[in-house]
């Protein structure tokens, strides 16, 4: 098997007394696409927020690209090569498309502390390029995101991820709010990542999509990983019984 790109050992997150994530052991190989499934509140998004350092973990280890990492924040995680599409999309409504694509990693004409001058033209050109490679159509990229449809906003968020993707892509329910056509578009972007050999973690409720797109399925239940199954050794019913707790009720399974 190819090398391991991401591994978590005993990853745990408590919010006060709520144990949102408990002892998660997870492995992702280079080039591999893994789906994370589970009921609402099973700990999927919490898991992602620890890996991307949007929140700081309570305990446990994260090994990324062969190194134990302690990202102080999401910007560091991005700089290390982890790109994420958040459930909330993480778009700034009042900025245009290029500003959103480059939010937090703007390009500059010259740097001078807070007076670093934005290089709007290059950002705009690179945005058009990124949208072209992902086959996303946005009529006017100079408009604030606020004025765009849900599908367009989603596509901007995903184009941002795909354009900067280097070592790992995480998508938290990227098609939850999309129509049929837009969903197909997003799935195409994901297949494009697979072709480029970029590993991905996909969080999804849509089992049809999961079986279509990924190599392996990891099931979360009540803050724990209860199953890790290759796509060809399982089926929808099997996954559902893990999600609902009919199977794997104890907490011994490892990913």
């Amino acid at each position, binding site marked *: 098997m190819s090398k391991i790109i991401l591994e978590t050992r005993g990853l745990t997150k408590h919010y006060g007394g709520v144990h949102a994530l408990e002892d998660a052991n997870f492995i992702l190989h280079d080039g591999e696409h893994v789906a994370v499934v589970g009921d609402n509140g099973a700990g999927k998004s919490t898991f992602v927020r620890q890996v991307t350092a949007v929140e700081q973990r309570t305990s446990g280890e994260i090994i990324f690209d062969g190194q134990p990492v302690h990202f102080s924040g999401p910007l560091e995680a991005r700089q290390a090569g982890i790109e994420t599409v958040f459930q909330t999309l993480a778009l700034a*409504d009042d900025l245009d498309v290029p500003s959103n694509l480059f939010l937090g990693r703007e390009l500059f004409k010259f740097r001078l502390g807070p*007076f670093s*001058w934005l290089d709007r033209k290059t950002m705009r050109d690179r945005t058009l390029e990124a949208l072209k490679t992902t086959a996303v159509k946005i*009529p006017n990229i100079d408009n604030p995101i606020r004025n765009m449809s849900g599908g367009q906003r989603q596509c901007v968020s995903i184009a941002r991820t795909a354009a900067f993707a280097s070592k790992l892509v995480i998508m938290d329910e990227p098609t939850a709010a999309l129509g049929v056509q837009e969903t197909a578009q997003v799935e195409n972007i994901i297949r494009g990542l697979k072709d480029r050999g970029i590993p991905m973690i996909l969080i999804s409720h849509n089992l049809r999509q999961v079986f279509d797109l990924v190599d392996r399925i990891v099931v979360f239940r009540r803050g724990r990983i209860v199953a890790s199954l290759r796509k060809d050794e399982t089926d929808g019913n099997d996954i559902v019984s893990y999600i609902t707790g009919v199977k794997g009720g104890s907490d011994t399974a490892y990913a």
Partner: protein
Amino acid sequence: MRLLVKTFLQKPELAAVLLLVLLIVLFQVLSNGIFLSAANLRGVLGLLPEMALVAVGVTLLMICGEFDLSVGSVFALMPMSMAVLMAQGWPFLPSVLVGLMLCAAIGFANGWLTIRFAIPSFITTLGMLFMARSLTVVISGGFPPRLDLERIPEHLFVAFVGPGELIRASFLWFLGLALVVSLLLSRTNFGNWVRATGGFLPAANAMGIPTARVKIACFMICSLLAGFAGMIQVLRVGSPLPSMGEGMELAAVAAAVIGGTVLTGGIGSILGGIIGAVLIRVIDNGLVLSRVDSNWFKFAIGALTILAVVGNAWLRKRGRAMKVEG
């Protein structure tokens, strides 16, 4: 063409610009042509920088999604501390610097308390409003010191300058500072971060923007501008009164809102805040020239605030609904 109209309709300051033009014409007619005379413009423009500088800071902070009710008190505290130091023999420049540092410290406290304890800035700065006002009275000792005009470089701040001596030097300070803040907001990464922070905080956090630092910076800029504006007023008047700047915090919010800044953050422009401040000055002056009982002033500002917000919302909706091909 439609795209142009659409873009124009979505400009946050559009409603205020339209109102301003309308009012200028109205007052010019009602005052029999006195309103736009050189003598009157001198008066209007001479006082404008004080209110407008405060409005610039408040607008920036509101775009960042926070409030500052303490600007009126800071407006008084900065020049009072400066005057007290000068009365004790300090030279002008160090006194100014100490005063500005005090403003920066208050801005920092506003921001830090708001973020550290996750309380609404409305509350933090309401508390600071009282505290800074009280400090102003305490350090004045009840007897506001007179400024020694000999020791003040008057020509740098309040002397009339320019063609026809139409404006005061303070107006140039105001233009310069407004331009700097405006460019900061529209052309730098800091500006993008401010809009992202005010527009949708979780997104800004997720993208790794140091939102706490961005907010604190905006609080500090806001306080500094308010203090600087207060200093200009005192240099013009000659003596700091402990009560100066009372009610200014709400007038500044009104200016920002009239100029199209949205209370929930993210949307707005510095130019809009300035136009709001100009509108308030124009109404103040125009009512007097038109021989309207000046007690109607606050009524007019209040009505204008509501009208502008309703108008802005309507224009924005029209702009968004407009279909553009391509």
